């Protein structure tokens, strides 16, 4: 499994969220979750996974999808990947 080596993970993740949820301001993204973002539906989740895979050069595993339910949990997932 690829290890995320570059710094600025949070900044890059904000950019990913900005692509999928362009209506969000940069201050809203760190607290984004399906309950706070009306457009966060299944299609948005699929797009988010694709954008994150492209940005970080990783493949999100099936069992990790459940960890991608908010900006914070996605960031935590990426940080864990980086630490491997």
């Amino acid at each position, binding site marked *: 499994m690829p290890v995320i080596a570059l710094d600025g993970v949070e900044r890059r993740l904000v950019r*990913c969220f900005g*692509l999928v949820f362009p209506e969000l301001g940069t201050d809203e993204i760190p607290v984004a979750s399906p309950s706070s973002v009306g457009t966060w539906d299944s299609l948005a989740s699929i797009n988010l996974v694709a954008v994150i895979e492209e940005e970080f050069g990783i493949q999100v595993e099936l069992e990790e999808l459940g960890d991608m339910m908010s900006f914070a949990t996605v960031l935590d997932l990426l940080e864990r990947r980086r630490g491997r």
Partner: protein
Amino acid sequence: MTVSEALAVMHAARAASGRVARYALVCGATPVHLGTFVAAELQRRLADTRVEIVNGPYGDVLGGLEQAARIDGDGAVVVVEWSDLDRRLGLRDAAGWRPGDLPDVVTNAAWACDAIVAGVGRLADRMPVAISGPTLPLPPVAFTPGWMASTVAVDLRRLAADLAARHAHLAGVRVVESQRLDTLSAPGTRLDVRSWLTIGFPYRRPHAAILGELLAQLLVPTAPKKGLITDLDDTVWRGVLGEASVSWDLDHRSHAHALYQQLLAALADAGVLIGVVCKADATTVEAGLAARDLLLPRERLFPVEAHWEPKSVSVERILRAWNIDAASVVFVDDSPAELAEVQSVYPDLTALRFPTGDDAGVYALLEELRDLFGKPRLVPEDGLRAPTTATGALPPVASGADRLDAFLARAEQELTVLPVATPGDGRALELVNKTNQFNLNGRRYTDGEWRALVERDGSVALVLAYRERYGPLGRISVLAGRRAGAHLTVDTWVLSCRAFSRRIEWATLAWLFDRWHLSDITFAYAPTPKNHLATGFLQELVDGALPAAPRVSAAAFAARKPALSIRWSAAECP
């Protein structure tokens, strides 16, 4: 294109102030990334327009086709996979791969093909359709090993080929070329089993991106180039005229030049202007072009510039004779220095090197030329273009009024007015979208926009066909607008560069004023970097500076109108 890039394209277009272009996407799978890629590729091609995708129901291509035909759309993208022909050919179903099931799979697929063709035909009556046939591998349904063709696989592929052929023959339907798709997206890399099973999306993202690009290209194609200027030595033939013998055959290992000649001849027959530049004396060049076994007929070459001046000078003369801009022209030469010299003067021109001695490189060049000059259909005017210009019957360029009067008096001019027919007649829209110099405002239209313009209340939409004693030029002008009583507003007006200097623009307005007893005509004029001929004509109609929407009264027009000797064919006047 990646999903990130596609989303960025769509977001950048959210602020576009233009109209919304709505496209239906019909596919049996969950469209997700395919929809994103199709939308982004369409959006990239439609500046100032905001693209919206309307998805059909999941797992129901036939229902999607019916639903798409009910929307007010600019076009439709239809993606058919094996699982749309029979659900047992998909991975999200488990209805049986037993040997006894297989004949029924083929029978069911044949029925589905018939139903899809019927549905696509109905959809194409409403809007242009871009379609792809099955792109994924067949699942391991057959009892044969994978390296052995099974009867079920062969029968299914025959059905798919037949499906593509039937679609390709339908008016308004364009089919993705599987050979190009195979080149860009290797068949073995397309299927994403995990994605199909988990979210219902069967494609790997790179494949979806390429498929989306090709489908969008079918709906919003790039304008084809109009003219090709070619060098002769080590390009049309191997060798240098006057220095050694030249050849284009297998014996001399120069057959790649024969293929190039063959392609040029085909392009000329399809309406592409072919000119020649060669640094040699004219006598030598004419002797070379007179070779009996040359595959490129001499009469298809016009003009032929043979002298020792820089090639950019030759190109300038040819562009002037053709009356088209450099951006519509491709220049082919074996010399990088000559290409650079011409390109330095004409940066908008497409300059391509002929890779003499590299057969594979020549073949790649032939493919590139096919793409640059490719058009969805041929119209009768394509066959007229080359011989008409080659007769040398071009009117004098930038001549005085007296010389023009003398030329036109002998020309036996005749114009015929035809109504614009939609759908089916692509010539009118093609003219509007490719004409630059005499173009009222440079406005380009999608098929859907054009249909809406022509079919609205009060619409006036005319195509003009022209002939003279030197031969027919075919349909050379399109005018569309709205008539209210004695007033006409012209929204779009183009006149082909082939028909300039014949006072056809004056005759057109004279006919409009007379035919409908108009009191005045308003022009939805807008200057563009290229429409100087339209600007110049309108300037002749008004006093002082050209206003934003020039309005010309019947009296003012009559006072300025020059002598006209054009006869009108009344038989088909609307």
